Every structure is written in structure tokens, then in C-alpha cells.
């Protein structure tokens, strides 16, 4: 009996997912909630458990523990016709033409083959790739084949797109094109989840992210919230090399050349400024910078890895 989809504000929900391979725990208690229509990034170093998490969410493998809902369905394959998936290891039948490969991937998701062929031709033409339509996959370059597979992921008009490391193997121009495509899909109301270990893509594209490290979610929330985990960074250059103002700096302040760098103290910029002025620092330049997602990622993923090391587990 087909389970009825429950309407939800979240396209994907996962609670306490865990998966082990032999004695190795690949995913350990991952919980996620991906808002419908958002672009969600799954960030983590290689081996963090991103692919395993995505495969569990899609129903390719079953979790040892935990629950998941994909488009409101507890059995992910029941939502398969509304999902597009680009696996990390790209795969196409080499003898198929580009058009047939796209149409076949649509047919797997319930799209009639004739309609899939029509859409495939239109998609290829739209991107100026009409010459590829009847070319076998084996004659295409790796990047071209990857584009064909991406079009196959979208041909049936999914409500949810899951992309595993979609930017790997693409040159800069194609990475930009892919970013534009992801934005266009999100603007059309499609939920996009992608995994990456390149922070810049997530920073440019995502509204929300989950940072995965050591099989656990170290952080899940808005990109701004991740950045806010780190205190703003202060850069200070003074005319006076020493003096009473030095006591206003935190203990971990670092001197790089003539520039002091340190996290903004919890009391905020006003007390710091007053202390510097009172201590006759002779401020030459003073700037406060908001940390980037990369800084936040290193801080969050690094801490989780260190914690795993402390337990004697795999730091990933």
C-alpha cells in the first residue's frame, strides 16, 4: 500500500541516522531538516560520511538506526519520481546517445520515453549542445558526459534534487554554469541538496548548511549562523609599540608584521576602543571583519575531529 505523503515545510527530514560498515561507524546520529525550496549544502572533509548520509536519505541503503522522510515519505523510493540524483561516481551507458541517456534516466523516474526524448532534445538545444544529441556517451568528454547526466537528473522535473559532489571534475566555467543552474532550480521552487568539500560553492549558493565531520553533524543551520559561531576578527595597527594599551588585547592576540590580529572580545568593540585610546596606543588602523564560512568550517569541523580523536575513534 502506498504511503500517503505528509505535507511538510521540510523536503527532507532525518533524525538520528546511523550506519556502520563492519566495525567502522560511517554515520553516527545525523539529524537534518531541509526546508522546501531551499538550497542546502552538506559540507565535510572527504570521508566525513556525506555520501553515506545522502545514500540513506535516498533509500539506496538502509540506516542501522534512525528515521528519514523524503518529500513526506518514510520510504524514499516512493518519492523517486519526484527526486533527481546525481551520484558522486557518475555513471552512464557508454553506447547510449546523449538523448537516449537523458530519456532513460527520466523513464527510470516515471517519465514516458517519448516525452523524455523530446525534453532531452530541447534541453540540449537550450544549452547550445544540440550537436551532441545523437552522439554516443563514449565519444563525449568527461565534462560533457557529466552535463548529460545532470540533464538526466532534471529531465523529469523533480521537486527535490540531490547532487553528490557536483562540482568535482568540472572546470571553472562549467562550475559557474552549474551554480547558475542550481540557483535557477531553487528559484523555480525546487529543493536542492548538494554535498561538497569546497566551501566557496556552499558560501555562494546555500541558505542552510550542515557541517559533517566524523560521521556526525557538527553544525546545522543558516550560513550566517555558522559564521556567527566565530567572533569577528580585529586587525589593529598602532604607532606605539608597547604601553598600557597592550593589556586591552586578549592573550591569544597574534602579531603579524606590524599588525595585531585577534578575536573581538565578548564585551564588543566599544570597551576595546576606549581601552586602546586610554592606553595611548596611537591607533593607525583598526578594522573588524566578519569571519567567512571557511573560517567557521575549519573551526567547527576541526573541533569535531579533535573530539573524535580524543575518544579514540576515527577522526575522518
Amino acid at each position, binding site marked *: 500500500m*502506498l504511503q500517503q505523503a505528509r505535507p511538510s515545510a521540510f523536503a527532507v527530514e532525518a533524525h538520528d541516522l546511523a550506519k556502520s560498515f563492519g566495525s*567502522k561507524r560511517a554515520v553516527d546520529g545525523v539529524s537534518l531538516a531541509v526546508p522546501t525550496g531551499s538550497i542546502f549544502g552538506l559540507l565535510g572533509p572527504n570521508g566525513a560520511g556525506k555520501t553515506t548520509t545522502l545514500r540513506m536519505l535516498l533509500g539506496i541503503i538502509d540506516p542501522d538506526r534512525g528515521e528519514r522522510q523524503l518529500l513526506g515519505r518514510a520510504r524514499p523510493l516512493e518519492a523517486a519520481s519526484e527526486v533527481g540524483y546525481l551520484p558522486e561516481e557518475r555513471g552512464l551507458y557508454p553506447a547510449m546517445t546523449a538523448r537516449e541517456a537523458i530519456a532513460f534516466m527520466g523513464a*527510470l523516474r516515471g517519465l514516458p520515453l517519448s516525452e523524455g526524448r523530446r525534453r532531452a532534445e530541447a534541453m540540449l538545444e537550450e544549452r547550445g549542445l544540440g550537436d551532441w544529441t545523437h552522439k554516443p556517451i563514449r565519444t563525449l568528454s568527461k565534462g560533457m558526459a557529466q552535463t548529460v547526466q545532470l540533464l538526466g537528473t532534471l529531465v523529469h522535473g523533480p521537486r527535490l534534487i540531490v547532487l553528490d559532489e557536483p562540482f568535482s571534475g568540472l572546470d571553472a566555467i562549467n562550475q559557474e554554469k552549474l551554480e547558475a543552474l542550481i540557483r535557477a532550480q531553487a528559484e523555480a521552487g525546487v529543493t536542492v541538496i548538494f554535498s561538497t568539500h569546497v566551501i566557496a560553492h556552499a558560501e555562494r549558493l546555500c541558505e542552510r548548511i550542515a557541517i559533517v565531520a566524523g560521521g556526525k553533524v557538527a553544525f546545522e543551520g543558516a550560513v550566517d549562523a555558522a559564521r556567527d559561531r566565530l567572533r569577528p576578527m580585529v586587525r589593529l595597527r598602532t604607532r606605539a609599540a608597547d604601553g598600557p594599551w597592550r593589556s586591552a588585547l586578549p592573550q591569544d592576540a597574534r602579531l603579524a608584521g606590524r599588525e595585531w590580529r585577534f578575536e573581538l572580545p565578548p564585551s564588543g568593540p566599544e570597551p576595546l576602543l576606549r581601552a586602546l585610546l586610554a592606553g595611548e596606543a596611537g591607533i593607525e588602523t583598526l578594522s573588524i571583519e566578519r569571519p567567512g564560512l571557511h573560517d567557521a568550517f575549519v573551526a567547527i569541523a576541526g573541533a569535531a575531529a579533535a573530539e573524535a580523536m580524543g575518544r579514540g575513534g576515527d577522526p575522518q
Partner: protein
Amino acid sequence: MTRRMNPFRAAFVIGRRDYGATVLSKTFLFFLLGPLFPILLGVLFGSIGASVASQAEVTRIAVVASPAELERLQRARAELAAVPDLRELPELRGAALGSDAAALLRDKERPVSAVLSDPFGTPRLTGALGAGDPLAGRVQLLLARANGSAAPLPALAITSVRSTAGSVETARSITARGGQALLFLLTLLLAGMLLSQLIEEKSNKVIEVLAAAVPVESIFLGKLFAMLCVSLTGIFVWASAGVLAVSLLLPAGSLAALPAPAVGWPLFALLGAAYFAMSYLLIGAAFLGIGAQASTVREVQTLSMPVTMAQVGLFALASFAVGEHGGGAVAAALFPLSSPFAMIARAALDEAILPHLAALAWQALWVSLILKLAAAWFRRSVLNGPGEKSRWWRRAPRETSAA
């Protein structure tokens, strides 16, 4: 938005792709030339089968005589049977004095090929005997031995009838063996393809795309039926070529001389097609499950030999069904993988239809069970494993990347 696919529709999508990819490839022409090899094998197996059959199928004759006369004949038979070249002497079955030869020949419970009456007076052999039938010569030899060398050789009169229960049984057993051999050869030739069916998807990583979209059972079902259709396409071509060759090379009416099976030729052909499909699906589902665990062509090649030997074992088990009604034949019919072979033989020997319906339902049940098990095994050991290098015979945990 697209509709949610049911598993059979998903299997159809997979099967359609596989069928097209196979039949429209250049290598399919070589596949169609494949029977040249099994025809040679068939000749070999046929001669082995005939040899086995000649040892297993002893001709029985009824002897209408007194117990003392029967005893003399049995003793003579035992003496002659000790001579290596005379092992094909007929088995003697006693019949009460005054028994009607025609009635004895019609008796299906105790079938005999011929009836010997009054062996030491005016011996007469009644049966479906052609001119120069070797059975008459063997009976003459028996009589000579039983009479002793000093006595004159009695003249054996021959009464030929159209057919007997024994001769029908012998003819049908030939059809049974022929049907079994054909079914075996076709399955041996064609089901092996399923061993390597998932290698393509695993080597080019398409398996991940398929498994994310449709149930593994649908992938297996689609592949199984695609290969069945490929095989049936081949069989259609070969059968058409065979019919053409027969009509050109053999005189008209030659095929009418073939011994008719118990259920008649039309139903026998229909059951043959059904049992071929079942045998293909049963053995193919098992092969698909085993082959799905292999990651490389080399591994598939390594698996091919034991798998072929297992098929030969199944054929040997199924051969119990011919000329035997005991536990062996029942076991061969019940054991799912040998059941189609056993039942096609039964169709040649026995008129009953209902056992075939039951057998087909039983075999279909096992096809679905084996597919389900194969899919579960694949999901557990390949998809659910940490990576492509996971092997079912090497279960120790491996240090591989989880992401």
C-alpha cells in the same frame, strides 16, 4: 511532475533498455551463430544419453508358460547375461498359462514389449516387431540355450501388432529424453549470460543511478526478463532456420514418424515453451544473484565453470524422471531448479495435465523467491557495503572511505 512507478513498470524500463542494447548490438549476430557449438554438445550428450538409456531401459517380455518353464528360461537368461556382449537380453516376466497375449500387451500397469507363448512347444512371439527386429533374435537365443545344445532349435513364430504398452513407453521415453536434452542445452547455452548482467552497471557506476530510482527487485526482474526475451528471439531465429532446413533436407512426412508424447505434440510444444521459460527464469535468477556479487569479468569467468557443472548436476537429477516413478523422480520434480527438466519428461510419458499446472505455479513461486533472495543479497553485500570492492566471499571489514 511524474507519476510514481510501480515495480513492474520499473522492471519494464530496465528490461527494455537491456533488450535493445543486446539485440541491436553487433555481437548479437555472433550470439545467433552460437548454436553451432551446442549442436556439437548435443550430439555428444545425445550419444551419452542413448548409451545410458540403453543400459537403463531393459526390454521386458511376458512369458505365458508354466512356472517350471519360466524357471528354465530365467536360468538360461542368467547364464547368457554373464557374457559381456549379451547384456541386452530381455527381462522375463511370468504370465499365467492361458493368458491372452493382446491383453498382456495392452496392460499399462505392467507394460511389456512382447509376449512369448508356449516357449518349449510351438513358441510364438507377439509384439510391435519390425522385420529383423533384434528382440526376436535374442528370444531365439534364449530358447536355444534353455533347450540345451542337443535339442533341435525350435522355430519361433512372430506375430506383429501395431503397438504395445511397452513399445509406446519406450518411444515416449525417447521423446522425454529428447525434450529434456533440448531444454537443458537451451538453458545451458542461454542462462549463463545472466552471470555477467550486472557487471556493466557496476563497472560504469550506473547501478547507483538505478538503485536510487527503482527497487533492486525491479532491476533484477527487468534484467531477467530482458535476457529471456533475448533468448526467445534467438530461439525463434534458430527454430525458423531449423524448420526451413528440415523442410528442405528431409522428405515430407519424416517428422510424423517421431514418437508422439503422452500429452500430444501441440500441448507438448506449449509445455516445452513454458518449461523453458521457467527453467531459464529459475536458473537465470540464481545466476543473476551469484553474478551480481562479482565485480569484474574475470570473476564472472571464474564462476562460470562451477555454475555450468551445477547445471549438469541438475540435468542428471532430472533424468530420474524418465523411466522411473519413485522418490527420485518426485524429488527431481519438486526440487525447483530441476523441476522444469523433470516435468517436460513427464509430459512425454504421462497424459495428466494438472500436475503441469501445479508444477508451473510451484516454479513461478520459486522464481519470485530466488529473485527476492538475490536482490536482498545484492543490497546487503554490494549496495549496503562500504564500496565497490566488497565481496561476498571476503566479509572481513575493510578500511575504506565512507563518504
